[in-house]
C-alpha cells in the first residue's frame, strides 16, 4: 500500500494514498469542522457530498479553497486548516446557510442537540449579514416522523441513509436551486410512501428538519387521569443509552435509575419489555423448532429460513418489497405488542379492571414502534394494546421537565410479574441478540440438554451481514444475521432466488440493531457510542442469574395460568399476527 507524506498546519503526517485531508488531519488530532459530512466507522456508512463547504481548508498552490471531506491528500501537500481566508469562508458559508434557516432555536425540538446550532456556536456567529428569501415548505406529519423542511440544510444524510444504507428509497433531493428539497416522490406525504419509519433519517439529521412525533403530552395527561391505570414497559436498548441524555458516558447501564425515574413520574406499574422478549422467544423458538422438525421429516411445504419479526420497520419493509414472501417470517408479534396484548388481558384480569381503563406506554429506542402500536390488527374494538410509544429521547425529556435528578436516583427494581426477565430478553437490544436468545432456548428444548455455554460469540459483532452454524447435537443449524435494511435485502433476494443456505435469520432495521435505533440519544456520527451500548447490553446479560427465556419463572407461570403452552390457540390469538401485501 502506497503511503504519502503531507503537512497539515505545519505538522508532518503520513497516510495511505486515498485518504482525505479531513481524515489525515484527524489522524494527528486536528479536527476540521464539518456539517454535512458524517461517517460511522465499522458500519460502512459515510456521507460526503461535499455540499456544505464548512470544511474548506487552504492548500498551498491551489487557487480555491478545498473541501477537506472530499479532497484526497496528495504527496507533498501543504494544508492550513485555520488561515483567516479559510475561517472567513467557513463563517460566510454558515451565515448563508443560516440566512435560509428559521431562527426559532429556543423552541425547536432539536435545540441543544443540533449540529447547525453547535456549528454557529463553534464558529462564533453573532450576526447574519445576509438577508434573503426564506424557504417555505408545508410540514408533513406521519405516525412517527415529522418533516419540517424549512429547517433542512440539504446535507443529504437522510437521503444517504434511506437509499444507500436502508435501500428503502423514499427520500430524494428534488427540484433545483433554491427550490431544492429532500422529499418522497411527487412530494407525497411520508405516510403515503413506502417509508418503514426506521427513523434512521431522524437519527442522522443535523437539524430539526426531521424529528419524531412527540407524545409526551398525551402520556402526562394519562398519568394525571385518576380513572386510568398506567403501565409502562421499557425496551432493552433504552437502559444502555438513556444515561447519555444525562451526561453519563456511552455504555453506562442505568436500568435501576430508569425504573426509579419512571416510578417518580407516576406510572402505576413499571414493567419490562425484556419480559415479553422472553415470551417472544418461547413462541418464535417453538415455531422455529416446529418448522425444523417438519423440514427434517421431509415436509416440502415448510417455509425456511424462518425470519425474526420483532422489528416493525423490517416488517413494513418486507410488506412493501417482498410481499410474495410474507409467509416466511415468524408470525410472532414483537415484544412490544406481546406485552400490550398480555397486559390488557392477563394483567388487567389480575387487577380486575377493564382494558379501556388501562393505558400501556412503552419506552422504545425506536420510531417505528409508534407506527406499529397504531396498526389496526393490534387493537381490540378500537382500543390499542399499546397506547403510546415514547422514544428514549422523549423519556429523557419527560424526566428533565419533571425536575427529577436522574443522576442521583437510587437503583430500583421492576414490578412483578411482567418485570421479570432473563439475559436472553436483554440482548434483544443489539444485532445478533434475538437469534442468540432463540438459540439458547431452541437448543435446550430440541436436545433436552443443558447448554455448556450460553454465550455465542460467533453470533455477535457489528458486521452488517454475519453467518454461523450452531451444532444442535449433531444437527447443524445455519444462522444468518443482518442489520440495516440494505443487508436484509441481500438475504431476502437470496431466499427469493431459492439459494438460501440458512435455517433462521435475524433481521433488525437499524445499524447496530435497537441500540442504534432512531429514537435513541443522537450519536452525532460517533459509531463508538453504538459499540459501547452493545458492550453494555452484553454486560447486563452476563449480570443476570437467569440467561435463558424458558427459565423465566413468570413466563412459566403465565403459560400455566393463562396461555397453556407456546403456539396454543390462545397464544395464537394474543401473541401472533399476519402480514399484508402493501404493494396494492
Amino acid at each position, binding site marked *: 500500500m502506497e503511503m504519502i507524506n503531507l503537512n497539515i498546519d505545519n505538522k508532518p503526517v503520513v497516510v495511505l494514498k486515498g485518504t482525505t485531508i479531513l481524515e489525515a488531519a484527524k489522524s494527528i488530532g486536528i479536527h476540521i469542522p464539518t456539517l454535512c459530512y458524517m461517517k460511522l466507522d465499522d458500519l460502512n456508512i459515510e456521507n460526503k457530498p461535499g455540499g456544505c463547504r464548512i470544511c474548506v481548508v487552504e492548500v498551498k498552490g491551489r487557487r480555491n479553497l478545498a473541501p477537506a471531506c472530499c479532497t484526497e491528500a496528495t504527496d507533498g501537500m501543504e494544508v492550513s486548516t485555520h488561515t483567516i481566508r479559510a475561517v472567513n469562508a467557513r463563517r460566510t458559508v454558515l451565515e448563508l446557510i443560516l440566512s435560509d434557516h428559521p431562527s426559532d432555536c429556543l423552541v425547536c425540538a432539536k435545540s441543544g442537540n443540533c449540529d447547525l446550532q453547535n456549528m454557529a456556536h463553534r464558529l462564533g456567529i453573532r450576526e447574519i449579514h445576509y438577508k434573503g428569501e426564506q424557504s417555505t415548505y408545508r410540514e408533513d406529519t406521519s405516525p412517527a416522523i415529522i418533516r419540517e423542511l424549512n429547517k433542512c440544510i440539504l446535507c443529504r444524510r437522510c437521503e444517504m441513509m434511506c*437509499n444507500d444504507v436502508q435501500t*428503502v*428509497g*423514499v*427520500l*430524494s*433531493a*428534488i*427540484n*433545483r436551486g433554491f427550490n431544492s428539497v429532500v*422529499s*418522497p*416522490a*411527487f412530494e407525497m406525504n411520508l405516510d403515503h*410512501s413506502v417509508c418503514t419509519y426506521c427513523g434512521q433519517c431522524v437519527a442522522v439529521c443535523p437539524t430539526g428538519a426531521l424529528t419524531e412525533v412527540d407524545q409526551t403530552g398525551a402520556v402526562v395527561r394519562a398519568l394525571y387521569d385518576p380513572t386510568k391505570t398506567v403501565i409502562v414497559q421499557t425496551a432493552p436498548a433504552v437502559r444502555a443509552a438513556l444515561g447519555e441524555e444525562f451526561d453519563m458516558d456511552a455504555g453506562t447501564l442505568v436500568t435501576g435509575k430508569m425504573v426509579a425515574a419512571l416510578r417518580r413520574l407516576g406510572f402505576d406499574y413499571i414493567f419490562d419489555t425484556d419480559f415479553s422478549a422472553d415470551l417472544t422467544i418461547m413462541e418464535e423458538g417453538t415455531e422455529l423448532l416446529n418448522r425444523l422438525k417438519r423440514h427434517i421429516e421431509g415436509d416440502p411445504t415448510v417455509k425456511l429460513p424462518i425470519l425474526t419479526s420483532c422489528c416493525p420497520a423490517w416488517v413494513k419493509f418486507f410488506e412493501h418489497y417482498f410481499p410474495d414472501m410474507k409467509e416466511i417470517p415468524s408470525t410472532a408479534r414483537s415484544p412490544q405488542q406481546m406485552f400490550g396484548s398480555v397486559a390488557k388481558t392477563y394483567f388487567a384480569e389480575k387487577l380486575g379492571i377493564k382494558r379501556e381503563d388501562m393505558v400501556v406506554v412503552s419506552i422504545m429506542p425506536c420510531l417505528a414502534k409508534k407506527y406499529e402500536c397504531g396498526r389496526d390488527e393490534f387493537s381490540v374494538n378500537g382500543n390499542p394494546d399499546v397506547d403510546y410509544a415514547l422514544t428514549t429521547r422523549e423519556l429523557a425529556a419527560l424526566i428533565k421537565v419533571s425536575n427529577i435528578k436522574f443522576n442521583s436516583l437510587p437503583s430500583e427494581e421492576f414490578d412483578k410479574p411482567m418485570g421479570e426477565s432473563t439475559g436472553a430478553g436483554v440482548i434483544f437490544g443489539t444485532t445478533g441478540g434475538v437469534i442468540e436468545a432463540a438459540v439458547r432456548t431452541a437448543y435446550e428444548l430440541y436436545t433436552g440438554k443443558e447448554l455448556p455455554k450460553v454465550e455465542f460469540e460467533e453470533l455477535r459483532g457489528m458486521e452488517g451481514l454475519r453467518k454461523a452454524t450452531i451444532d444442535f447435537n449433531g444437527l447443524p443449524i445455519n444462522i444468518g444475521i443482518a442489520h440495516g435494511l440494505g443487508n436484509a435485502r441481500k438475504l431476502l433476494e437470496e431466499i427469493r432466488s431459492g439459494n438460501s443456505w440458512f435455517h433462521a435469520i435475524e433481521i433488525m432495521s437499524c445499524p447496530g440493531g435497537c441500540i442504534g435505533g432512531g429514537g435513541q440519544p443522537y450519536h452525532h456520527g460517533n459509531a463508538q457510542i453504538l459499540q459501547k451500548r452493545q458492550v453494555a447490553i452484553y454486560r447486563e446479560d452476563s449480570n443476570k442469574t437467569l440467561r435463558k427465556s424458558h427459565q423465566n419463572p413468570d413466563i412459566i407461570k403465565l403459560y400455566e395460568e393463562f396461555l397453556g403452552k407456546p403456539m396454543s390457540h390462545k397464544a395464537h390469538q394474543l401473541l401472533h399476527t399476519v402480514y399484508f401485501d402493501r404493494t396494492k
Partner: protein
Amino acid sequence: MPKIKLAESAVQTIKEVCQKFGNKEGELINVLHGVQEKLGYLPAEVQEVIAHELTMSVAKVYGVVTFYSFFTMIPKGLYPVSICMGTACYVRGAEQVLHEFKRQLKVEVGQTTPDGKFSLSCLRCVGACGLAPVVMVGDKVYGRVAPLQVKQIIAEYHEGGVTQAAKSA
C-alpha cells in the same frame, strides 16, 4: 394530482424505451428523453413504471424529472407557446408580453389550458435577439411582439389558420 391508469400500450412503450437502454439506472436521463418524446410528458404513473423497469426508487426518478426543466409532468398543449426571457427580450418588454399571454390564456407558466390547446412556458434566448422580444408557438417564431398583438396571435390558432410548422411541433 389526478390518478390516471396507464394504457397497456403506454406501458409497453415505456418498457421498450427502457430496454433500448439496457434497463440501466445510469441511462435514466436518456430513458426520460425517449419516453417524453413518445408520450409527450412524464406523469407520476409513467415515472413509476420507469423506476420499476430500471430497478431504482421512484423518488430518484422524480428527483431527476424535477431537476431538469426540459422534463414535464404536465402534457404540453397542441400549440406550445414559449416566451423568450433572455436579456435582450427581457429589456425590450418580454415580461409584459408574458403577462398578456397569461391574462389571455388564463394559465400560469408551466400550465396548459383546460382544452389542451395552449401551454405556456419561458425559455432563454432562441438566438434571434435582433427580433426581441421573441415568442415561439410550436416552431414558428414571432418577432418584435407587443402586448397588443398577443390576442391576434392566439386567434390565429383558434381559427384554425395554422401554419404547418406550428402544427408539427
